[in-house]
């Protein structure tokens, strides 16, 4: 078996990746029947059930013709009304094919490979007797969702719509927000076999050319058969694969994308991804929410303050508890000290193990709630709440104060919305807990210094990860936001062509 696999692997390198007709003619024939049989063999007709060939007679031209298409990805209503009906019922002399058809996009093509690509993308190929070129009529209809409400990044105030899995819709949602001829949606094919396309969206009189070139070269240097989603693409083009922290913002909100496009960022859009990738991203991008700027100045900054607080609670609360109760007892006020000592008295586990047990239980419940099918998910949380909240305390396995600490820091971790950043913070929290459990506050301090050094060393497409806080690059939109009227500069670290917003 293993040998076989290896041979397949080596074969792959020898055989050209393109599935094109290697021993087939590269351009089509003037004989209709030969063309039809060529495409029938290409598409393994009749095994391939949704591949269709429709013969048709065109009275205006007095010629036999054939329509070749895949009926699951073409708009059959348009096919019937705009193509079959127009071609077979009209009888005008001196009319060309273009005159007869009412479809919005028609192109002529001789290359078999290109015609195949057209058919694969939902077009209908029209071959006419005694003609050495085919016509590609674009009437694709891929099934997908409607534009839905944002589910992962919800806001109370502000637009509710979110991206869906159709790239065209997503770009349309962005264009709805930026009605400008300088908004460019450039398309690049990233994979060899599945031919997935990525749209690089940017505002061409803002974006930093060097950054754009970097993105283009990273995408075009990908050598793989298939990349179906942006989340996979992210892993191909990110700066460091091993890093804890995400270096690209993955958002489902078109308003966020548009806002950042206007700042000079680059947005990647792809079919099958209900999100977009925004780059470069700094630490603060993950920390901010579009609602910050929808809310009024005071309210927006209050929510940011809450978010900072939550970040610190989720990172350090459990760790500080462990450090203080194990190493620095003298720091606790006497009442609290005795309260902790009293409830800890009957717990058989050491404080560190007790906390780790609860943290792991919390992570398990969270994961179970996430993965369980929707009808079962509420049960997972009820059982979890019972185990953690009630029974563990009553059975003297866990002290109540640990429940409070784990619940609070767990709750606060949900406030960081981005899933990659959320996981990064959770991993960091465990590092902090271990450091505090081993060396108390000294260990905690050491790990914080190490973490900050690490974060500062990161880069996202050439942008320092902690910018604009460090290195200090004005304007500094980090902890708090400024008044919209005073927010006149684009982020300095993006080096945009136009620096001011007015």
């Amino acid at each position, binding site marked *: 078996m293993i040998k076989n696999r290896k041979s397949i692997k080596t074969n792959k390198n020898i055989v050209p990746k393109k599935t094109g007709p290697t021993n087939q003619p590269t351009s089509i024939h003037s004989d209709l029947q030969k063309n039809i049989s060529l495409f029938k063999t290409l598409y393994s007709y009749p095994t391939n059930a949704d591949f269709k060939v429709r013969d048709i007679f065109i009275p205006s031209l007095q010629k036999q013709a054939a329509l070749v298409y895949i009926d699951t990805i073409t708009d059959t209503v348009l096919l019937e009304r705009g193509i079959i009906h127009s071609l077979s019922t009209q009888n005008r002399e001196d009319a060309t094919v273009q005159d007869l058809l009412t479809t919005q996009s028609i192109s002529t093509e001789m290359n078999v490979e290109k015609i195949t690509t057209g058919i694969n993308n939902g077009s209908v190929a029209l071959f006419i007797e005694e003609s050495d070129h085919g016509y590609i009529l674009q009437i694709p209809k891929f099934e997908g969702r409607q534009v839905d409400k944002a589910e992962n990044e919800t806001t109370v105030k502000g637009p509710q719509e979110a991206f869906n899995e159709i790239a065209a819709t997503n770009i349309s949602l962005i264009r709805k927000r930026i009605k400008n001829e300088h908004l460019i949606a450039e398309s690049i094919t990233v994979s060899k076999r599945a031919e997935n396309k990525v749209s690089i969206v940017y505002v061409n009189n803002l974006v930093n050319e060097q950054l754009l070139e970097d993105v283009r070269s990273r995408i075009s240097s990908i050598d793989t058969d298939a990349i179906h989603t942006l989340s996979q693409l992210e892993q191909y083009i990110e700066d460091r694969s*091993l890093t804890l922290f995400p270096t690209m913002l993955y958002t489902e909100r078109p308003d966020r994308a548009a806002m950042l496009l206007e700042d000079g960022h680059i947005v990647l859009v792809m079919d099958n991804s209900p999100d977009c990738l925004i780059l470069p991203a700094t630490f603060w991008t993950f920390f901010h929410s579009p609602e910050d700027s929808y809310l009024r100045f005071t309210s927006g900054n209050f929510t940011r303050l809450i978010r900072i607080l939550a970040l610190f609670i989720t990172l350090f609360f459990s760790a500080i508890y462990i450090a203080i*109760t*194990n*190493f620095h*007892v*003298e720091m606790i006020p*006497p*009442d609290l*000290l*005795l*309260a*902790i*000592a*009293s*409830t*800890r*008295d*009957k*717990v058989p586990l*050491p*404080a560190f193990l007790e906390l780790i047990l609860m943290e792991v239980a919390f992570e398990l419940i969270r994961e179970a709630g996430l993965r369980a099918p929707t009808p079962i998910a509420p049960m997972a949380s009820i059982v979890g709440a019972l185990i953690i909240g009630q029974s563990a*305390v*009553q059975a*003297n396995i866990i*002290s*109540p104060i640990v429940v409070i600490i784990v619940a609070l820091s767990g709750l606060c971790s949900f406030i960081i919305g981005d899933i990659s950043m959320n996981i990064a913070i959770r991993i960091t929290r465990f590092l902090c807990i271990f450091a505090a459990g*081993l*060396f*108390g506050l000294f260990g905690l301090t050491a790990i914080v210094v190490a973490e900050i050094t690490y974060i500062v060393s990161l880069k996202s497409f050439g942008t320092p990860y902690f910018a604009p806080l460090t290195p200090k690059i004005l304007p500094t939109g980090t902890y708090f936001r400024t008044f919209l009227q005073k927010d006149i500069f684009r982020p300095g670290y993006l080096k945009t062509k136009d620096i001011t917003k007015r």
Partner: protein
Amino acid sequence: MFKQSLHHYSKHLWIIFVLILLTGCWDQQEISKQAYVVAIGMDKYEKNPNKIKVSYLIANPDVGQASTGGGGQSEPPAVVMSFPANDITTAKDIANMEVAKPISYDMLKIIIVSEEFARDENFVKWLYDTTKEPEIKMDIRMLVVPEGAAAFLNRNKPILETRPHEYYELILRHGDVTGLVPPTDDLLTFFRIAEAGEDMFLAIYGTTTESDEKHTDFNVKAGELPIQAKVKDRPSYAGAAAFFQGKMVDIYTAEEARLVILMNNTYADTTMLDTVNDPFNKDNKLAVQIHRNGITNTKMDFHKGKPRIKVKVPINVQIVNHSMHNISYSASKRHTLKRSIEQEFQERFQKFIDKTKEETKAQPFGWSLAARKAFATIPAYEAFRFNKQYPDMEVSVTVEVILGQDGRQNKTPTMQDLRDKK
């Protein structure tokens, strides 16, 4: 490539792992696996002068906790144990002969010393042991009791508080606010003053015994106020134990302690309630709220003739009880009252200063610091020998009373008005 980097990292991981092994001195202590000493008592040990009698007040964490997982309501809130020991550090291990958990001084609030022990020449030597014990914080307070520390701890049944740590915390905090006991004087200050050897340190004075000598007003020491309550052995705290050069030399009443607080700039500005003579009615007293207004101005004149100290104490006075005089409405009444209070406080100060000159031959006002300013160099100051000269110095105190703003007061009728209507 990836393998190489992993190999590279694994080296670092090994170094970190070795570091963990090297740490060795693990001072990790489970919070619930320790016995917390709230108060330490220190007495003379009669049988052996090289030992002291150490008393521990150990808090029981289980009492007063109404949470799930806690419990043990029938247990006593605290345990007192006394035993002879060489010093308070080894005392920890001696106590462990009876106490199951290791003794911790992390929660130590107060050191209680018997008066007899405090007056001992070697007292300061024993107290210096506290500086070598890392768990004892230098901001803990010192209480001097006449009946002996062990007796005090055993008899001390506070009226309303069950949990001992809470009791000591509250009583210390409130003592600071009322000025009945010297505020904010901790161990660190004790050592600093003892080492300088020129000023006096005031510790809290308290007792559980009732003195036969009964007084009213604030001119009392602990145990002298005739409070009647059904509970026996109530602790009371009033006045101060004065230490000079690390040895207790005198006991001050609450009023004397307050005079020190008013005059000595190193004490925080404390607002206290007091009574002063009523200038309009000889038999009556007026209730006032006083606090030092800014800082006391001390001028030393050592170079011409007899050494003189001139002190100007600014005091802010707020009349609490007008005693139907309607003082706020009359400028002349205000003036009379002001003069009267100034006079009274000057007399109080003068009396107290004379007492310090005669009895202890040292002063608790922190004047040695101000005296240094009168000399160009420290050797010149040392040659002057401030302490030797103090009893012969001429000290004049002027009190500057600033009447506080009363705001709008409701007018009270005069006594005559009331009687006439009848």
